[in-house]
């Protein structure tokens, strides 16, 4: 067997002082299997050693939260004994190396996290970020990732109902692929990963273990360098068919009362799953590795423990339920093996060929894992740019609108979501393309809305503001479809924590997320941190992705953003101040990349959102849409496109320049459509709540009439907005 020393430890991604700590904790030198286990458990991906300290700041509780962070996924209460289980997860590094399999296994992994808890997955979302469209690799990466997400999700029969796609050169060497899943479970049938009881059988089910993905978790914790070719063998291949069988088999077993604890084998496979179960139950586990179903001959204990083969689960069963469980997994043609049992040793003990090959106290792997208070640098709020009216005066609104609607970050992403089955399960009532995806809770009048958002540019310009903004945007997207926001999950994609600036971005984004979610009572129930999105010295723009979930009590009251009826009135809620810095307009038309992001006023955010919900509750709202990237005119255009209707805008009473008015990205704003007869009632409610509003115009047949001089037909708007991605992908 290979001898272990500091050099070998460093090759495993451990730092010299971490290796020393392992020797101290064990009071001996670990063998190679043990070292492998430590390196897997102590890497950034599994141990959260750089982030733990800061994640503690996130608010995680509310009356609706059943389970916060710490389990496989978060759980929220949606009444009538129903609960939603949800989480987001990154699969960035694997997707850059092999986009199809990387993305596919990302989707597979997050679905397993959700059905491990007893929930049937009912919706998938994804947040994907690519390098600049001109970058040579971008097109193939995008195609591969989309095919991978679709390939896995479609086969599972889970609709992909929403997502987000962006392009930015900071992702040239590190794309981001974040996958999110929502599942539905009865409140009294939630399963957890905490083992309990002595001498309970430990069961392995699913696919066989192969050599794939050994050290995937450590790969996710390292930056890319020139040697990325060498990292290739760590790619895992997904098998959605087996996962579908595993889902059905697990749910079937969960109907009874056989399961004490269940945990999927995700990053670091059998290692982290067994250790987590033992650690939560304050127990030991012993495993006979000869019993683990293996795909390849002669796999070593090291390989078996570190394999990241997909579609596997670990279960602690009640005594005497083995036969019953085996029958179910046989029926679904899946591997089933009793591989060990719980013990009172509080150690993880592994046996192979009748010899003990590892014996480690569980607490050394979990509680004693390293935690760092990394150095970080506070970001300054950039100075505002002083734009002069002359900067705008020679711009034609129509030209600007065309450029913005066809910008790669605003244009329609239909090419992507048409490749995702978004209607399977027969409950999708709002497809991708709206503010949130919405699915009904099967057989009830309720519906669940979900959206995933991130604004890397704002976070890069000022992390604290950016962090707040993403949470607010998620909240707005839910409110726009008539859902009451309940909770969020977050996927924190950052550069290297060992770089003070990147670490600062992380710390302050988390601070911003924390402030906003506290204020909006929109707690964080699950999440994931992905550091080292870095190639050599270049890190990505900080990209926290927020997945929000909300409830619509009566699905017939759901709102969509398409303009509905000619002669209806269109209003804007929230104040337009003309904040141009960091707007898409400033960055693409003026080529001005400096300046602060728009401010987020949490009081207004909450007040405006809640007032809109009140209007929706009273049936006044015919369509609604939040204003985000591209500003007011972009939002209006999208409502025209979707509804196939036009609008005649009234002359604004505002004194600012038209360009600022139309393209600024001030926060907390929505556009709403109401019937003329309801205007006075609507205004009464808005005034009662002190919400700023303006009348924007009236819906007409098929033109966007901006002013006397400027008119754009709906067909023009459509062609601006829908062609870019299609053309790009087929060129």
């Amino acid at each position, binding site marked *: 067997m290979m001898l272990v020393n500091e050099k070998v430890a460093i090759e495993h991604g451990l730092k010299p002082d971490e290796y020393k700590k392992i020797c101290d904790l064990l009071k001996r030198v670990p063998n190679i299997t043990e070292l492998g286990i430590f390196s897997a458990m102590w890497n950034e991906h599994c141990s959260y050693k750089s982030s733990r300290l800061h994640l503690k700041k996130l608010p995680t509780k509310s009356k609706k939260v059943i389970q916060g962070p710490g389990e496989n996924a978060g759980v929220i209460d949606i009444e009538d004994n129903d609960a939603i289980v949800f989480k987001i997860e990154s699969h960035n590094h694997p997707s850059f190396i092999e986009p199809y399999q990387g993305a596919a296994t990302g989707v597979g992994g997050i679905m397993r996290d959700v059905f491990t808890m007893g929930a049937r997955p009912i919706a998938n979302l994804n947040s994907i970020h690519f390098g600049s469209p001109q970058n040579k690799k971008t097109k193939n990466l995008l195609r591969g990732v989309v095919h991978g997400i679709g390939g896995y999700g*479609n086969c599972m029969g889970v609709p992909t109902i929403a997502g987000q796609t962006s392009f930015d050169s900071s992702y040239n060497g590190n794309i981001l692929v974040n996958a999110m899943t929502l599942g539905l479970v009865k409140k009294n049938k939630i399963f957890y990963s905490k083992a309990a009881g002595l001498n309970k059988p430990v069961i392995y089910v699913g696919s066989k273990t192969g050599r794939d993905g050994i050290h995937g978790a450590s790969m996710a914790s390292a930056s890319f360098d020139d040697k990325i070719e060498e990292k290739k063998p760590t790619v895992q291949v997904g098998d959605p*068919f087996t996962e579908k069988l595993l889902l059905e088999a697990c749910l079937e077993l969960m109907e009874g009362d056989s399961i004490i604890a269940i945990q999927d084998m995700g990053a670091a496979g059998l290692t982290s799953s067994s250790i987590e179960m033992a650690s939560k139950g304050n127990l030991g586990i012993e495993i006979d590795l000869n019993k683990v179903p293996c795909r390849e001959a002669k796999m070593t204990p090291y390989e078996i423990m570190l394999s990241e083969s997909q579609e596997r689960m670990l279960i602690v069963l009640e005594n005497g339920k083995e036969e019953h469980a085996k029958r179910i997994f046989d029926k679904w043609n899946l591997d089933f093996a009793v591989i060990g049992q719980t013990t009172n040793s509080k150690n993880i003990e592994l046996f192979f060929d009748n010899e003990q090959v590892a014996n480690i106290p569980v607490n050394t792997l979990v509680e004693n894992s390293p935690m760092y208070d990394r150095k970080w640098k506070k970001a300054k709020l950039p100075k505002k740019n002083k734009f002069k009216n002359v900067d705008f005066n020679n711009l034609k609104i129509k030209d600007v609108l065309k450029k913005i609607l066809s910008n790669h970050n605003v244009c329609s992403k239909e090419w992507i979501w048409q490749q*995702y*089955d978004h*209607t399977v399960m*027969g*409950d999708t009532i709002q497809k991708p393309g709206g503010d949130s995806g919405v699915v009904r809770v099967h057989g009830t009048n309720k519906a669940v809305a979900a959206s995933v958002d991130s604004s890397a540019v704002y976070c890069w310009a000022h992390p604290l503001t950016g962090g707040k903004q993403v949470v607010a945007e998620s909240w707005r997207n839910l409110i726009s479809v008539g859902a009451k926001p309940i909770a969020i999950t977050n996927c924190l994609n950052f550069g290297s924590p060992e770089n003070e600036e990147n670490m600062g971005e992380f710390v302050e984004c988390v601070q911003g997320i924390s402030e906003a979610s506290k204020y909006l009572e929109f707690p964080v129930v699950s999440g994931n941190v992905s550091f080292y999105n870095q190639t050599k010295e270049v890190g990505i723009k900080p990209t926290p992705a927020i997945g929000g979930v909300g409830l619509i009590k009566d699905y017939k009251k759901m709102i969509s953003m398409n303009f509905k009826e000619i002669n209806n009135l269109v209003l804007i809620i929230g104040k337009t101040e003309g904040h141009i810095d960091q707007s898409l307009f400033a960055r693409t038309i003026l080529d001005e990349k400096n300046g602060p992001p728009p401010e987020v006023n949490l009081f207004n955010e909450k007040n405006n959102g809640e007032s809109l919900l009140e209007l929706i509750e009273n049936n006044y709202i015919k369509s609604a849409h939040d204003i985000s990237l591209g500003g007011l005119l972009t939002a209006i255009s999208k409502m025209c496109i979707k509804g196939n209707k036009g609008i005649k805008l009234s002359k604004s009473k505002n004194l600012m320049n038209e360009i600022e008015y139309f393209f600024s990205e001030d926060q907390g704003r929505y556009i709403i459509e109401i019937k003329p007869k309801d205007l006075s009632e609507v205004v009464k409610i808005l005034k009662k709540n002190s919400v700023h509003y303006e009348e924007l115009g009236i819906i007409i047949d098929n033109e966007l009439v901006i002013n006397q001089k400027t008119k754009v037909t709906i067909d023009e708007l459509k062609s601006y907005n829908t062609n870019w991605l299609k053309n790009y992908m087929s060129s």
Partner: protein
Amino acid sequence: MKSSVITFPGSNCDRDMDVALSKFGFKNKMVWHDDNELPKSDLVVLPGGFSYGDYLRCGSMASKSKIMQSVINFAKSGGLVMGICNGFQILVETGLVPGVLLRNKYLEFICKNVYVKVVNKQNPYFKNLDKDILELHIAHNEGNYFCTDDQLKEINENNQIAIYYCDEKGHTEEQHNPNGSLKNIAGIFNKEKNVLGMMPHPERMIDQSLSGEDGSIFFKNLINNLK
């Protein structure tokens, strides 16, 4: 009316089909692929999904499963068998309907609403339908219908084409063909018209909150025809 929906490993529209059939008055039973016998049924449905992961060829492995022998016998004795999407692919693999389903022309999965033109109403599925054009939903990766020239000749002679892809006015030009299907074929019968295979999913269009309601029209008409 009694119906049976077969669940294969990897089927994922089986529940949706069950919901739809039940909604329009069928007494539906779910049947496991590994069973030997079909319950007594007026209609057997092979649902959509990815039976056996769509590995090898879509539908190929499901066509070899135990229950399929009974389904084939049932069809040969005149029983109504309908295959939707993956179910269509399974029917093709058993040879109950002619042709094959290749990968979509642009090699992309397509999920969207399309229009189809009903061209043959002399059969239990479309008899009495008061519309000629239905808006239905497709969601597939392999719906590109293909058959040999000889087969096509026979298909035409026997009026076996059930539905064509078209636009909302019923035009069946190539640009209304979502997947490259030969002659815009979206669904096809066996010679006797008791077996129907089609790519669109009527079961996803049974509620105005969903993608539309033309699926409801299809199912209501179907159960009335069977009564």
